[in-house]
C-alpha cells in the first residue's frame, strides 16, 4: 500500500502548511505595523504555495480525480492531517510569532532532509520550501529576540505564548508505521530525528531572548489521526464556505 502511505504523508505535510497559512492570513489588515502586515501575508502566501504543490502531488498519487482545490476545500476536519499546533487560534502577536518560530525552525530542518527524497517531485518541492523557510526562520526568530528583550509587556506576552504552545510541539516529532515504511524507501523524513536539533536551536534563541523553556513532559497529540481541537472546524467553515455553497466557483 505504498501509494496510500505516500498520499497520507503528503497530506500531513500539506495540511500543516495550508492551515498555518490560513491562520497567518487572518492577520492581513490587522498586524501591528504595515511592514509586518506585508511580511505575515507574504509568509502565508509561501505556506499556501507549498500546500498547493504538495496537495497537487497528493491528488496525483491518489488518482481519484480530486485536484488540490478539492482536497483543500471539500475535505472535512476529520480528514485533515495537520498537527494541532498550526490550527490553534492566531492569538495575540506573541502567540503568532512563537508558533511561527517553532514551526519554521521545524520546517527548515524537515525540508533540508526531505531534499534527499527518492521522489524527484517531492525533493524539488522540499528544496523550494527550504529556501523560503530560511526567510521565515529569520523573520520569526528576530521577533522572538525583539519581544523577549523588549518591554515588560512584550516579554511577559511572549513567555505566556511559549508556555501555552510548548505542549503542542511534541507532535511535530511523532512518527508512526506509515512514516517508518516511507522512511525505509527514502520517501519521508524520520521526524523523531529532528527533535534534538530543533530543541537545541529553539532553546538557544529563547535563551538569548531571556525566555524560559517550559518544563512540560506531557504533549498533546491527535492531529495526524484526524482528532483535532474544536478550533479547526471553525477555521475550515470559514475557509471552505465559498466552495461549499457555490461548488466549482472560480474567479
Amino acid at each position, binding site marked *: 500500500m505504498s501509494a496510500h502511505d505516500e498520499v497520507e504523508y503528503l497530506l500531513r505535510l500539506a495540511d500543516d502548511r495550508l492551515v498555518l497559512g490560513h491562520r497567518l492570513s487572518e492577520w492581513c489588515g490587522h498586524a501591528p505595523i504595515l511592514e509586518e502586515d506585508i511580511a505575515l501575508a507574504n509568509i502565508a502566501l509561501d505556506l499556501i504555495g507549498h500546500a498547493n504543490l504538495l496537495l497537487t502531488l497528493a491528488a496525483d498519487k491518489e488518482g481519484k480525480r480530486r485536484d488540490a482545490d478539492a482536497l483543500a476545500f471539500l475535505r472535512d476536519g476529520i480528514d485533515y492531517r495537520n498537527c494541532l499546533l498550526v490550527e490553534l487560534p492566531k492569538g495575540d502577536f506573541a502567540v503568532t510569532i512563537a508558533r511561527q518560530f517553532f514551526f519554521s525552525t521545524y520546517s527548515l530542518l524537515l525540508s533540508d532532509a526531505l531534499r534527499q527524497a527518492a521522489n524527484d517531485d517531492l525533493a524539488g518541492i522540499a528544496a*523550494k520550501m527550504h529556501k523560503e523557510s530560511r526567510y521565515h526562520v529569520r*523573520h520569526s526568530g528576530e521577533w522572538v529576540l525583539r519581544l523577549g528583550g523588549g518591554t515588560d509587556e512584550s516579554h511577559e506576552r511572549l513567555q505566556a505564548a511559549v508556555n501555552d504552545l510548548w505542549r503542542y510541539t511534541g507532535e511535530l516529532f511523532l512518527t508512526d508505521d506509515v512514516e517508518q515504511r516511507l522512511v525505509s524507501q527514502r520517501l519521508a523524513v524520520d521526524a523523531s530525528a529532528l527533535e534534538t536539533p530543533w530543541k537545541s536551536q529553539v532553546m538557544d534563541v529563547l535563551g538569548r531572548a531571556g525566555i524560559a523553556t517550559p518544563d512540560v513532559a506531557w504533549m498533546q497529540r491527535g492531529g495526524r489521526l484526524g482528532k483535532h481541537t474544536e478550533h479547526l472546524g471553525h477555521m475550515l467553515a470559514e475557509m471552505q464556505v465559498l466552495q461549499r455553497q457555490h461548488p466549482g466557483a472560480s474567479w
Partner: protein
Amino acid sequence: MRVLESVMDPEVPVLNVVELGIVRDVELLENGARVTVTPTYSGCPAMAVIERDIAQALRDHGVGRVEVRTRYTPAWTTDWIPAEAREKLRAYGIAPPGPAEHDAPVQLGRRRPAVRCPFCGSSHTTLESEFGSTACKSIHVCDDCRQPFEEFKPI
C-alpha cells in the same frame, strides 16, 4: 527562445522570463512546442499569468500546440539572473540580488551586506523589511538620498 524573450514578468516588467531563469528548456515538436518552466516562489500569483503569457506568445507566432511543463529540480535561484538583467533591474529602480546563501546556517540579527541604493549608488542603506510588495522583494531606505527602494532579494 527569441519569442519567449518578449514575455515579460508581470510584476517586474523590465525582465523577461528567459532572463529570470524561469524558462529551463524549449523543445520543438512536430506540430508545436514544449516549454519547461521552473517556478520562482511557491506562492507567487504571477506564475499562472506567466505560463499563460508564454503559451499565448508562442501561439501568436504560429506555434500550433503549446505544452507548458513544470520542473522543480533544481530549485529556482536568483543566481541564474545574468549581469545585463541585473543592470536593467537597477536602472528600473530595483536593487539587483546579491549572491544567494543556500545552505549557510540562518543567523539572527546579523548585519547583512549593504544593498546599494539603485538611485544614488550609496551603500549607506537600511533594511526595513525582508518582505515587500511581492514575494521576490524586500524593502530598504537609502540613508543618503532618503529614497525608499526595493531589492530583488537573493534566494
